[in-house]
């Protein structure tokens, strides 16, 4: 009986999360802020790196993994801001609260929507890096696993800090200060893993991928636990 109830509430959690994710993605499909503004911004960052680092001496190709993840990180800040900005219009936040959804489900839904948008962004930026920086990909499996684990970590941490800052005065300037130091291990691990995957020995990347996976699981779990309380406090 209780096992059944538990199974049912877990199923509910996923169903509610899917609803929230679908809602956020539907808003994105109609407003096209990620595609129309955040994505071009990411490409612009990739382009500006070529001005900062001499494109003729192969520095870009060597630095490509780090530059790629810096661009993703900057785009994430915008995506998180956007994800919580859509809740401020027309009392959407109150609507979502009154809908009786579980806090953990709202967290998973919003994080999933951000993750899906990040994946699109990473594909485009990845193609941009390969084309513009003249990079070869050796270990496709390593690159894909790294991107997957890092994206889950980025999206869940971003959502967690997004709700923490949501509704606060000064949230736009506070969010990067809170989020970037926490994401430093993701930046570090994803860059090292990409270096191995793109350049030399893809096999060396797996410890980093494991670290990224641990980070992703940890922050997703904390998000599921803490989101409800923070969501209630957000004004």
């Amino acid at each position, binding site marked *: 009986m209780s096992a059944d109830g538990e199974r049912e509430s877990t199923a509910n959690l996923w169903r509610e999360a899917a609803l929230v994710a679908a809602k956020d993605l539907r808003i994105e499909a109609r407003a096209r802020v990620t595609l129309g503004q955040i994505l071009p911004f990411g490409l612009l960052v990739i382009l500006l790196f070529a001005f900062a680092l001499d494109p003729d001496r192969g520095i870009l190709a060597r630095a490509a993994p780090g530059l790629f993840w810096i661009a993703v990180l900057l785009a994430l800040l915008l995506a998180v801001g956007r994800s919580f900005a859509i809740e401020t219009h027309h009392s959407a936040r109150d609507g979502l609260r009154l809908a009786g959804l579980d806090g953990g489900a709202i967290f998973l839904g919003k994080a999933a929507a951000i993750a899906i948008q990040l994946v699109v962004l990473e594909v485009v930026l990845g193609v941009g890096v390969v084309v513009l920086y003249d990079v070869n990909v050796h270990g496709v499996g390593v690159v894909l696993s790294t991107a997957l684990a890092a994206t889950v970590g980025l999206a869940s941490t971003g959502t967690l800090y997004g709700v923490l800052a949501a509704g606060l005065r000064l949230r736009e300037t506070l969010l990067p200060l*809170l989020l970037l130091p926490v994401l430093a291990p993701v930046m570090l691990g994803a860059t090292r893993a990409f270096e191995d995957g793109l350049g030399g020995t893809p096999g060396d990347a797996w410890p980093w991928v494991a670290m990224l996976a641990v980070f992703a699981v940890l922050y997703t779990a904390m998000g599921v636990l803490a989101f409800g309380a923070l969501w209630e406090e957000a004004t």
Partner: protein
Amino acid sequence: MMDGTRDQKDQLLLPPVRRALGVMTAVSLAALVGFGLWGAPPDAVQGDAQRLMYLHVPAAWLAYLAFFITAAASALFLWRRTRSPVWDRVAGASAELGVMFTALALVLGAVWGKPVWGIWWAWDARLVSTALLFFLFLGYLALRRIPGDPVGAAKRNAIAALIAFVDVPIVHFSVEWWRTLHQQATVFSPKLSPQIHGVMGLTLWMGTIAFTLLFVYLLDRRYRLAVLEEGRAEVELVRAIAERTGVAVGP
């Protein structure tokens, strides 16, 4: 719930304890200055620059202790049975001191690094993770400065402290894998005596004790300041309401 906050502990330490602690702190700091500058011999290799270690090592130790206290106090606040504004104030006060001691450790380390390593800053594991720790809790302090409903804000701050603290071991190990150059810790090493000259080891311990006393003293003072700040905010709120409603309030 709001009313329950007023009669909570107004001070952390009883006045006689605090005064005794203040005297002990001053005496131990004076002893540290004496031993650090004159009592301990100059290092065989590093010369007088090594004396900076008597401040750098205790500052770094205190930084870690302070952040641990912030995390523990935040957990105690979040746990319903121990929830009290006391823990929120302790968490905030300790984080402020932690950020200060972290900055001190980084600056002293840089000043020491220039003559000994030949560089102000190295991309060494412990340096990088300490710098990240500094920014992690600087963000936490920025969050704390944003006013709001007291109980809600305290809960938010406590959650923020814990999710930042979880990052500390991840930062530590990831950066450790990345690079390591820093010398191994000496104070807590079991092979203390063969590594450091007796007086030098004594001075290092003296620094650790003096800084720990200073930390507790400052924590108490900062706690008291937090209580006064809350009181002022409440008085201002009452006055603002009185002005709006036109009802006079007594002095």
